[in-house]
């Protein structure tokens, strides 16, 4: 209503300047109003997208790291308690151990069961239960210990996976043992449907015989999930954890 009144006011402005005696601020016309609202919506959309980037690349890390730290503390406490009461059942709920990858320079990564977003979003690595079940190193059986973690956001635990080269150590720490793996093959880009990389004997890595393998998967290129990045390692040796939890020499360097 006001807008139509304004328009007539504008058109009659030249001929009858005395029609509106009060010097009110001139209101924009209907089209001008629509354009300005549209512009504001565009600005809002831009700010929203910007905020989403801030959220996914920064805030999710803050949240995830906080949660992961709390869970890691819980696991360590658990281990300390069990130490006194002798060997107990493997507790897969809180996490089964820690992954240390010096080349990724990200400290220790808690490993939990499952690769759903509910697990991985807590800033941990998850071992596969589906579509190919991971073989845990603690079982001592031949097989593939396949884990996944986020490349960006939610702790971004595998962000530096591209820094891993052949020969680099990957150490998995459990309550009683250090499992020292060595990277022997890297697949920088593969389809996200390539579940064969998780096989007990991952043929694509060049190995044909059963053995103790570890597979790290995450997404690539960074900030997208168009493809998957895969790193394979092979068990070199297992060290018993001593009373002081002295890390193996690969982690001391």
């Amino acid at each position: 209503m006001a807008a139509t009144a304004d328009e007539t006011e504008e058109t009659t402005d030249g001929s009858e300047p005395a029609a509106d005696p009060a010097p009110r601020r001139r209101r924009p016309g209907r089209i001008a109003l629509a354009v300005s609202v549209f512009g504001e919506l565009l600005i809002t959309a831009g700010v929203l997208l910007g905020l989403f980037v801030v959220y996914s690349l920064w805030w999710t890390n803050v949240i995830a790291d906080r949660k992961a730290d709390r869970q890691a503390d819980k696991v360590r406490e658990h281990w300390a308690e069990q130490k006194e009461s002798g060997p107990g059942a493997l507790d897969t709920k809180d996490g089964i151990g820690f992954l240390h990858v010096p080349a990724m320079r990200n400290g220790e990564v808690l490993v939990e069961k499952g690769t759903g977003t509910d697990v991985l979003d807590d800033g941990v690595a998850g071992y596969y239960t589906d579509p190919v079940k991971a073989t845990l190193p603690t079982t001592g059986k031949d097989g593939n210990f396949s884990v996944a973690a986020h490349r960006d956001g939610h702790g971004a635990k595998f962000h530096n996976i591209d820094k891993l080269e052949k020969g680099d150590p990957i150490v998995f720490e459990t309550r009683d043992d250090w499992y020292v793996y060595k990277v022997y093959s890297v697949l920088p880009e593969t389809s996200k449907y390539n579940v064969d990389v998780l096989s007990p004997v991952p043929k694509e890595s060049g190995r044909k015989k059963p053995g103790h393998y570890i597979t790290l998967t995450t997404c690539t290129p960074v900030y997208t999930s168009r493809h998957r990045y895969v790193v394979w390692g092979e068990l070199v040796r297992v060290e018993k954890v001593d009373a002081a939890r002295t890390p193996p020499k690969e982690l001391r360097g």
Partner: protein
Amino acid sequence: MYGWIWRHLPGNAWVKALLSLVLVLAVVYVLFQYVFPWAEPLLPFNDVTVDNQ
């Protein structure tokens, strides 16, 4: 739209500015706490696993 909000906030310019800031923070909080966590899984940016789906 924003002009309308500004005109409907009470007080002088300083009070309006303060209230605007509070509104902005409230909106950001709601986005970070509820909207983005909901929207994230629907967007194809953060799938890290291989699967056959």
